[in-house]
């Protein structure tokens, strides 16, 4: 029920010119996103770099259109200089500002379930496939498994049970590629990994360490290494976490400390010479630091959710194997889960890079979308959305698509149908009115409420719409009432 204010009375405030006060003049304010507030990750890409990788050039409007059709959103245009001006609000001198680039940066919003769009490589690749410029790459896991990592299961089970690994061979980094590599890890950490609690990614220069590797969880005071933060000091894990909790220069690491702090044992990745590669999920070691000259990359993802760990690893590999001398290939690693008596309980080869096949009934897809396209046409459309190559089975009634490791969002045939309709173009679908015949009806409570509102309004009262959320002070203290049990929030705004 809505509340009414007892405010019967005459119209007040007629101004001196005998006019009624007018509502404020409407200004062209861009009222941003509302209601169903979708959480959409934002990727910043340099416009020129994007177009050069795409091999095509667009006006801002034309690019906006392309994004619209594909399902991403060009949210904002800015530049390094503009960002600095907006954020530090004048703490930089004019000279300092001039040194910053004014190259245009596009801020693109991508759907929350498309982890392959979290870097420029992924966006470019998907758009090129969508435009038909290239075919979707086939990701290959190289046959021989030469490298391995042993998980001391009894220890790691206490804090962070799983790990998956991969090796990118003969990769070439440039500054842009390197920055993008780091940015992708940050994006994944923020989104899918839920701030590193579910999965944490560590990347290392493979040539600076010696396999086979070990994933263990040890007494914090017994883990000693030089971490990848500004200093060259060596810490043990316990003092390192205390350091990160207090040191201002490392405050970006502080939020992750609570993930392992209370545990008796901290997770640690080591090589065969007991060098520490990383202390997941906090920080990597300085020894295995990646530089622009790194040629081989060892990736390890430790996790509490194995499904997500595999998705994360597959994504990083899929995106950056592009820069290997044999593009879209990856060297696998065997993961051996060993218990305290030395027996291997479980073994897996990662990365999965699963190219699974999924099926959807063609009539189902057509009916779900509301179109009627031929099986052949549907098969070809699959190529545009990274579900190709597709096969027609069972007398052209079944569509079998290839789901690459970049499309972990495909859960059910409806996902396939959606992609087919995106390839077809949402705005090309003919609209229909459902033939559902129903009779409208209102809720008796709302009907009564509205009737009462009108009557009370006619009686001369002015309606007020009050907030549902109020403070203890407003509800009790200020009214001199004793606090009684009421619905209270555990996380008030």
């Amino acid at each position, binding site marked *: 029920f*809505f509340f009414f204010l007892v405010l019967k009375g*005459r*119209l007040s405030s*007629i101004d001196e010119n*005998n006019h009624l006060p*007018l*509502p*404020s003049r*409407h*200004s*062209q304010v861009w*009222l*941003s996103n*509302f*209601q*169903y507030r*979708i*959480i959409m990750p934002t990727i910043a890409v340099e416009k020129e770099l994007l177009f050069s990788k795409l091999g095509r050039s667009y006006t801002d409007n034309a690019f906006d259109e392309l994004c*619209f*059709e594909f*399902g991403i*959103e060009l949210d904002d245009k800015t530049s390094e200089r503009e960002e600095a001006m907006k954020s530090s609000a004048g703490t930089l001198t004019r000279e300092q500002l001039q040194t910053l680039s004014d190259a245009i940066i596009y801020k693109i919003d991508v*759907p929350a379930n498309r982890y392959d769009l979290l870097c420029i490589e992924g966006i470019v690749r998907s758009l090129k496939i969508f435009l038909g410029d290239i075919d979707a790459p086939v990701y290959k896991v190289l046959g021989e498994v030469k490298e391995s990592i042993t998980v001391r299961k009894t220890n790691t089970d206490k804090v962070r049970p799983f790990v998956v690994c991969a090796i990118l061979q003969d990769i070439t980094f440039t500054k842009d590629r390197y920055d993008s590599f780091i940015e992708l890890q940050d994006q994944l950490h923020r989104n899918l990994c839920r701030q590193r609690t579910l999965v944490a990614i560590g990347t290392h220069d493979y040539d600076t360490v010696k396999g086979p590797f070990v994933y263990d969880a040890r007494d914090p005071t017994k883990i000693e290494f030089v971490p990848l933060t500004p200093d060259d000091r060596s810490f043990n894990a316990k003092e390192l976490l205390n350091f990160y909790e207090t040191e201002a220069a490392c405050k970006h690491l502080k939020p992750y400390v609570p993930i392992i702090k209370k545990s008796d044992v901290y997770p640690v990745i080591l090589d065969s010479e007991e060098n520490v590669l990383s202390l997941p999920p906090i920080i990597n070691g300085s020894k295995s630091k990646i530089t622009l000259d790194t040629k081989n990359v060892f990736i390890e993802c430790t996790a509490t*959710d194995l*499904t*997500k760990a595999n998705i994360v690893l597959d994504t990083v590999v899929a995106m950056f194997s592009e820069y290997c001398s044999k593009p879209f290939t990856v060297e696998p690693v065997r993961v051996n889960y060993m218990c305290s008596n030395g027996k291997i309980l479980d073994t897996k080869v990662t990365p999965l890079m699963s190219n699974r096949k999924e099926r959807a009934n063609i009539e189902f897809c057509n009916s*779900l979308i*509301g179109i009627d396209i031929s099986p052949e046409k549907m098969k070809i459309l699959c190529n545009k959305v990274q579900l190709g190559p597709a096969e027609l089975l069972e007398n052209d009634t079944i569509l079998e698509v290839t789901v690459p490791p970049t499309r972990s969002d495909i*859960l*059910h*045939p*409806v*996902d396939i*149908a*959606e992609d087919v309709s*995106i390839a077809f173009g*949402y705005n090309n679908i003919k*609209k*229909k*009115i*459902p033939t*559902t*015949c129903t*009779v*409208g009806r*209102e*809720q008796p409570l709302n009907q009564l409420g509205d009737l009462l*509102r*009108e009557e009370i309004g006619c009686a*001369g009262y*002015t309606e*007020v*719409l009050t*907030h549902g*959320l109020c403070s203890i002070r407003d509800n009790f203290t200020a009214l001199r009432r004793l606090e009684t049990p009421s*619905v209270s*929030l*555990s*996380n008030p*705004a």
Partner: protein
Amino acid sequence: MAEIDQKILIHLNENGLIDDSYPWSKELGYGHDDVVGRAKSLSVIRYVVTENLSTSFYTLTDQGSSVIKDGSQEMKVFNAIKEASKLSMNDLKTAVGKDTSKIGMAQCMKNKWIKKEGDDLIPIVESVEDIVRSQLQSLDNMSDKIAKELKKRKLISLKKISSLKIEKGPLFSLEIKKQAADITKEMLDSGEWKDIQFKPYTFLTFGQSVGGGYLHPLLKVRAEFRKVLMQMGFEEMPTNKWVESSFWNFDSLFQPQSHPARDAHDTFFIKEPARTVSVPEEYYERVKTMHEKGGSGSIGYRYDFQREEAFKNLLRTHTTAISSQMLYKLAQNCGDNFKPAKYFSIDRVFRNETMDATHLCEFHQVEGMVVDYNLSLGDLIGTVETFFKKIGITQLRFKPAFNPYTEPSMEVFGYHPTLEKWTEIGNSGMFRPEMLAPMGLPEGVRVIAWGLSLERPTMIKYKIDNIRDLFGHKVEMARTKTAPVCRF
């Protein structure tokens, strides 16, 4: 009064116009308000024509007057220090008073008249001029920069005078002929009416207000939307329940338990009562299995579903929580006799978001859904278009989007006639089979749904920029009272 009238008329007769009523009235020694009043009545009978003027000028505040009389604070401070050749701050305070010493000292330092030596203040110059005082003495020719400084020190203030420029009107005459207010029988009988001047009707003044009640603009829009949806054959859902369990708000909608929206950053969780009492157990098991393992053609999310998480109480983040319960009830009650349905609701939802000019923690969501066999995306497009057409937006485009519980999903963009540009106006999609199957809806039944916020179209329609001017206790009464009728 008549005196002033005469003076005005005589002056106009001789000089044609009175440039500015303010100095004129001052000159003649009349109260300016009286002059303005009389000029206005003369303009009503069209003897004169008036034009509004506004002048602003600076006047001395009390502080300012005292500075002219006794000298500025810095002057006093300087003199005190000069006389004593050096003074400690405390002694200065005793010498000139606390306020004067504070302001004066600061000014002296600024002007570099004195400096600090240890605890004492000493003069650095031989003599000084009281600049501020001389500035105050010549208010008329002050530059804006000086004026700003003096205003900051509260020595002068800006006064605004509204005055009139008065000129001869079309019916100008030196003699004020009395105008008759009414026509009487005597005038008609005697024939006087031919010569008498009648007071013209004024149609532009407001009469006495009749008072009245007013309904809230947001709720006016809500009433219109309810009508629109019922005209489309939709049945209202019972949404009078703000506290919901995570189970109905998220889990039953196939939103994974690790989804960011279930974070404390986005959702309000209840401290008391923290847990829901019960959920339908058999249905709960089916939902759990769907999340963990999949089924009905889905591979599921493959994680461990936690009962504890599902039982957490929260303030609902969308009315889709109720939609879910309606679908469950529909499935349970129909058995083999499925009846298609169209549901809608317009009610309050809560999100723990950063508040800004267009977002509050609570707002209203409009939601509609159609449940029937073999519905398609084409049907959804058609339904959404029908709805938006009814509220005045006829040009629509659809964009691929993502919601955890719909697939396919579409964001609705419309060309808004008021904003004159394309803008996002809603969100829509088909509920996922993973959501519908555990409910027990028959195979082949599909659900299309769409939603938008109530506040946004209202703010556009009523030209309101800040949501706090629409919803809550800070809304100005005048706004509600003057809110136009809502018509789409």
